[in-house]
């Protein structure tokens, strides 16, 4: 099983985001120095960027990040020598497991999808799933072990 390394501050930030937006789903972007291929063992997330959930019609169980916002996030990430390596969102009162909707809407092959279960306002399990495959026809989620690193690396909050 692959490993996703996440800086402690970033890990806590994405979980806190889920608690703040409860009972709605939060969402955001995970950044790594070189697309995430940081170590021989696994990829390293060094910061996160909060994003807006455009699914205001059903924010309690749906999320979507506006492409226009991703363009800006990606541009700023490039300025910092970082690249998009994954995304995170929360599941209010729902397990930290990918859903059918999560899978159908997942198109960033090679990126990690990190999900936090938020139970009655409190962040519980956080799991990561790498979207692997080569095309839409053979894409699949593979669970990754999350290893939280005790590093003082900033999280970019919006």
């Amino acid at each position, binding site marked *: 099983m692959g490993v996703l390394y996440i800086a402690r501050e970033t890990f806590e930030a994405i979980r806190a985001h889920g608690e703040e937006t409860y009972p709605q789903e939060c969402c955001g972007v995970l950044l790594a120095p070189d697309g995430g291929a940081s170590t021989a063992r696994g990829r390293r997330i060094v910061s996160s960027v909060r994003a807006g959930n455009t699914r205001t019609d059903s924010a309690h169980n749906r999320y979507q990040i506006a*492409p226009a916002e991703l363009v800006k996030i990606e541009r700023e990430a490039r300025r910092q020598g970082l690249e*998009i390596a994954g995304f995170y969102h929360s599941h209010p009162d*729902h397990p930290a497991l990918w859903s*059918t*909707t999560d899978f159908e*809407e997942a*198109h*960033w092959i*090679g990126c990690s999808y990190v999900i936090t279960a938020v139970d009655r306002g409190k962040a519980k*399990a956080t799991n990561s799933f790498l979207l692997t495959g080569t095309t839409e026809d053979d894409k699949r989620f593979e669970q990754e072990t999350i290893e939280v690193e005790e590093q003082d690396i900033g999280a970019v909050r919006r």
Partner: protein
Amino acid sequence: MTIFIPTPLRPCAAGQSAVEIAASTIAGALDRLTETHPDLRKHLFTGDGKLRSFVNLYLNDEDVRYLPAKEATPIKAEDTLSIIPSIAGGAGRTSRSAFAAGEQSVKAASRSLATDH
């Protein structure tokens, strides 16, 4: 112009995160891009040549689908084209019973992963 390649498509673009393309329109730039990197075509376009529904194109900060000339829009050398696959999802059902059932499923599958941090 510079075309920014998203993470999922970089293996099809020789690992590059950005490609410089000389063209007069967005469509021309995409044609040149897929001529240079043919594996990109099936990821960007359907069999009948239409842009896949989950692929968003941004000319600088504007969504190409909302430009008056769309892909026929003329471009300048300093323009950028960002290829942005959609990012969306969600839990679906949110009942307490579903949460409890899901937690049990996670615990049964892998105790080492379903931890309260």
